[in-house]
C-alpha cells in the first residue's frame, strides 16, 4: 500500500498532528538510527574478527565519544518508552482517547531519566 501524496514534503511538515505526530516521526528516526548503529557495530566486529581490520577500533572511537552516547541513549530511551505506549494503546484501543495525554506522560518519564544520564555523561566528559 504505497503512499500517494498530493502534497509536498514541505506542506506535509505543516500538518498539525501535534504530540502523537512528532512521537511517530521520532519513533521512526530512532528505530532506524538504532538499526544503523547495531548494523555498523556487527559489521565492524565481523571485519575485525575475520580480517583483522581496524574498522572495529575506528567505530568504537566514534561510539564511545560523549556526543554519540547521548544521541544513542536518547534514541533507545525514546524508542523503548514510546514503543511501550504504542503497544499498550494498540492492545487496549479504548485508551486511544487519551493518546495525547499518553504522549505527555511519556515525556514525563523520558526527560528526567535522559536528563540525569546526560548530566552524568557531560560532567564526566569535561573533567568530572
Amino acid at each position, binding site marked *: *500500500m*504505497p*503512499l500517494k501524496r498530493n502534497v509536498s514534503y514541505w506542506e506535509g511538515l505543516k500538518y498539525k498532528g501535534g504530540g*502523537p505526530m512528532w512521537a*511517530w516521526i521520532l519513533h*521512526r528516526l530512532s*528505530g*532506524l538510527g*538504532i*538499526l544503523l548503529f*547495531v*548494523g555498523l557495530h*556487527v*559489521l565492524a*566486529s*565481523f571485519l575485525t*574478527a575475520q580480517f583483522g581490520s581496524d574498522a572495529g577500533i575506528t567505530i568504537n572511537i566514534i*561510539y*564511545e565519544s560523549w556526543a554519540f*552516547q547521548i544521541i*544513542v*541513549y536518547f534514541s*533507545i530511551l525514546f524508542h*523503548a518508552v514510546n*514503543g*511501550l505506549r*504504542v*503497544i499498550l494503546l*494498540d*492492545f487496549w484501543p479504548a485508551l486511544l482517547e487519551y493518546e495525547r495525554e499518553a504522549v505527555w506522560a511519556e515525556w514525563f518519564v523520558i526527560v528526567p531519566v535522559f536528563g540525569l*544520564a546526560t548530566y552524568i*555523561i557531560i560532567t*564526566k566528559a569535561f573533567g568530572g
Partner: protein
Amino acid sequence: MQARRIPKILSFESIMWLFMRISGLAMYVFALTGLTIALIMGARTQMDMGTLLRWTFFPIGTHVTSSDILVLEQWINPFWTIMQYLTIVFATMHGTNGLRMVLEDYMDAGWGVHVLRGLLLIIWLFMLLVAFNLIQTTGAV
C-alpha cells in the same frame, strides 16, 4: 498512527504487526533482566553508558569488559547464552522488519518489494551469523 492497512485475517503483514509488539515487550524483559542481574553481580561504579547498554542488550564476555564485575566467568553459563541468543534474534528481526515497514511505506507494490524483502532477509541472516559466532566463541572462555 498507522499508515499501513492491517487486515484482520492472518497475513504476513498482520503477523509482523503482532511480532513487532511481542518482540518489543520481549526486549523489555531481556533488558531489565540483564541490567538487574549485572547490578546484583556487582557492576556498579564502572558503568558508563556503553557498558550499561551492553549489559542490557548484549551481555557477552568480550563486550562488557569495562564494568567492575571481577569474575566474569561466573556468568558464562547456559542462562546467559540463551538470553544472548533470544535478544539478538528478536532485536535484529525487529530492526530489519522495521526497516522493511518504513521502506515499503514509500514503495509501490510490485517486484521491487520482493527484491527488498530478499535483501533484508540476507542482511538479517548475516547479522545472526556474525552474532552467533561471537556468542559461541566467547561462551567457550
